[in-house]
């Protein structure tokens, strides 16, 4: 075991999978020689050569579109989109083809592949470098969407994503790429896709979050303790398929819930979570489920981004609101 941050953890996961399975390859803008603008693919090209760690032309649709072909023909492409803000050009291939090959061919052709992308705000970046549009992805049938919040989970989930028989979109909370260092198991280590994790136990209120928000929520959870409130914190880890079982069990216990996400509020994933709670645990609710989320505006440039991003203060406020109801 070695102490690693999330970038190093994902890198080691890629490294080990490429060693284990010669069909695994990474491709994207600057992922080869440069090792990725965030260094997630650092060292892969020098170790596995330019044919398995490939710098591509600057074209997101092209990257994921050829990856589909690579996958159908038996390779395991791990494509990188440099930022989730540049996911939109690739959406057509994802929505119209990647998510549908298995269904369209009634199982004859499949495209197990991974599309990685850093996402989320808080790094003082220019426009299009802070987006969180994961809810759009969760609305697309036929793909899985994974979002780690710790180095260990990141490694375990990237390995599972590479081994998954279906396309997996892997969203990396770049804000905490280097913020957390922890022991990350070397060698064979997987985390099952589709399973949320109870990060903190509590019986007064359930707080559901993912990605970079987990850290903010844990911070708030510690502070609300002083007010005698014991919060249970759930890190979804996979947002599609959604592990509503873990959420419901918790809400049935606590009777109260707050959902925290960076993405714009309207039609964000928070809405779906509320819908599931409403459908399956309405009678356990002692207060309306609260959403602490981004606003329905363009993500602001960094003079104002701290106002846009949910932080401990706003999360505390959300928890207090459901407790006071």
């Amino acid at each position, binding site marked *: 075991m070695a102490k690693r941050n999330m970038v190093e953890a994902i890198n080691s996961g890629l490294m080990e999978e490429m060693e284990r399975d010669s069909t695994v*390859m990474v491709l994207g803008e600057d992922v080869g020689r440069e090792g990725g603008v965030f260094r997630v693919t650092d060292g892969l090209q020098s170790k596995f050569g330019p*044919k398995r760690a490939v710098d*591509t*032309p600057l*074209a997101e*649709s*092209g990257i994921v*579109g*050829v*990856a*589909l*072909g*690579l*996958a*159908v*023909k*038996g*390779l395991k492409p791990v494509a990188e989109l440099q930022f989730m803000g540049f996911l939109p*050009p690739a959406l*057509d*291939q994802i929505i*119209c*083809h990647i998510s549908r*090959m*298995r*269904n*369209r*061919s*009634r*199982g*004859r*052709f*499949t495209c197990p592949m991974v599309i990685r992308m850093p996402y989320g705000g808080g790094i003082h970046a220019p426009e299009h470098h802070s987006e969180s549009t994961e809810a759009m992805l969760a609305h697309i*049938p*036929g793909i*899985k969407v994974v979002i780690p919040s710790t180095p260990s989970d990141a490694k375990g989930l990237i390995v599972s994503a590479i081994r998954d*028989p*279906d396309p997996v979109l892997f969203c990396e909370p770049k804000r905490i790429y280097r913020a957390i260092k922890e022991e990350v198991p070397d060698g064979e280590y997987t985390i099952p896709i*589709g399973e949320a994790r109870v990060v903190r136990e509590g019986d007064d209120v359930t707080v559901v979050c993912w990605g970079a928000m987990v850290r903010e929520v844990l911070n708030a959870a510690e502070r609300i303790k002083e007010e005698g409130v014991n919060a249970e914190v759930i890190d979804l880890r996979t947002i599609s*398929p*959604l592990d*509503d*079982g873990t959420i419901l069990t918790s809400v049935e216990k606590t009777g109260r819930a707050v959902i925290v996400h960076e993405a714009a509020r309207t039609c964000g994933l928070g809405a779906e979570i509320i819908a599931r709670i409403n459908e399956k645990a309405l009678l356990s609710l002692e207060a309306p489920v609260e959403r602490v989320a981004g606003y329905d505006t363009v993500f602001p440039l960094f003079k104002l981004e701290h106002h846009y991003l949910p932080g401990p203060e706003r999360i505390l406020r959300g928890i207090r609101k459901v407790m006071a109801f």
Partner: protein
Amino acid sequence: MIEQFDPHKGKILRILQPDGRCEEKLKPDLADDTVKTLYREMVFIRQADQRALSLQRQGRSGTYAPCQGQEAAQVGSTYALGEGDWIFPSFRETGACYMRGVPLKDILLYWMGDERGQKVAEGTNVFPISIPVGSHPLHAVGVAWAAQLQGEKICTVAYFGDGATSEGDFHEAMNFAGVFQTPTIFFCQNNQYAISVPRKIQTAAKTLAQKAMAYGFSGIQVDGNDLFAVYAATREAREKAISGGGPTMIEAVTYRFGPHTTADDPTKYRADEELEEWKPLDPLLRVQKYLEGKELWTKDWEAQIKEEAEKSISEAVQDAEGVVEPKPEEFFQFAFAEMTPNLKEQMDDFLAFLKEKGD
């Protein structure tokens, strides 16, 4: 040959003249029997295409995109391919798919609104039909790239139309193919229209073939109604591809004799005169005259192959219509290798609903 016919210099490859005469020095070596077989296939495809149209008219099938007039382009190009090669059809490739081993029954089944028609047999390297125009050449590049990395000597062929060349994905596919020198043939059937939009509104470039220059590889314009020209160009492009020479774009200049689809009325946007001008260029007529000239064609033989075609087409229709209805829940079953709990829940509720309804 491809290099000699520079589209930029207004050159276009034509070997078989409309009157059946043939440029002997350019003629590919196709045995007479082979030519007869290919003619027979073209006849079959035309009749199958006709049948698909009438099935739709009779309400026995859904929308259908006919390929009448494009038989030489599809037969000539596919016949030039090898065993392990892959093709990536769009929606108008009945001929190409059939030539590459997709049973007519399956093609018809698909247009009858049944996904099972797209489940080709193992070893049949035909991608499912891609409806989004211009989006699938990328897949042909990806498969070709993989084959290259796997050390297989095969090529992939993307079939698309003149309209498809306007899409961004066409550009990205051509560019990736050039950069990674993938063994890919971009086979464009320029049938002069994208639904109602004429070729000249699609791009200001004189030819579509010249677009290849933007990606550092060559393109050639061929008479798409000329079986020999299409075959020869594709053959050469394939040899180049499997010997590491990279991609080629072939623009097959042809004409859609029929409507865009069964939902379309061409008289709204094109004059009958235009159609009349193209009729003498009919790809079948040309091969027929050629064979006639060599005394390899007779009315009787024509009648015979047509009758045989009708027979097997009727069988295919019967088979397609005889396929048992899909299970209602089938559309849940191919979303993932293993159904997700959420989907399972939805399927169970769906089945419960059917039960309640008494289906």
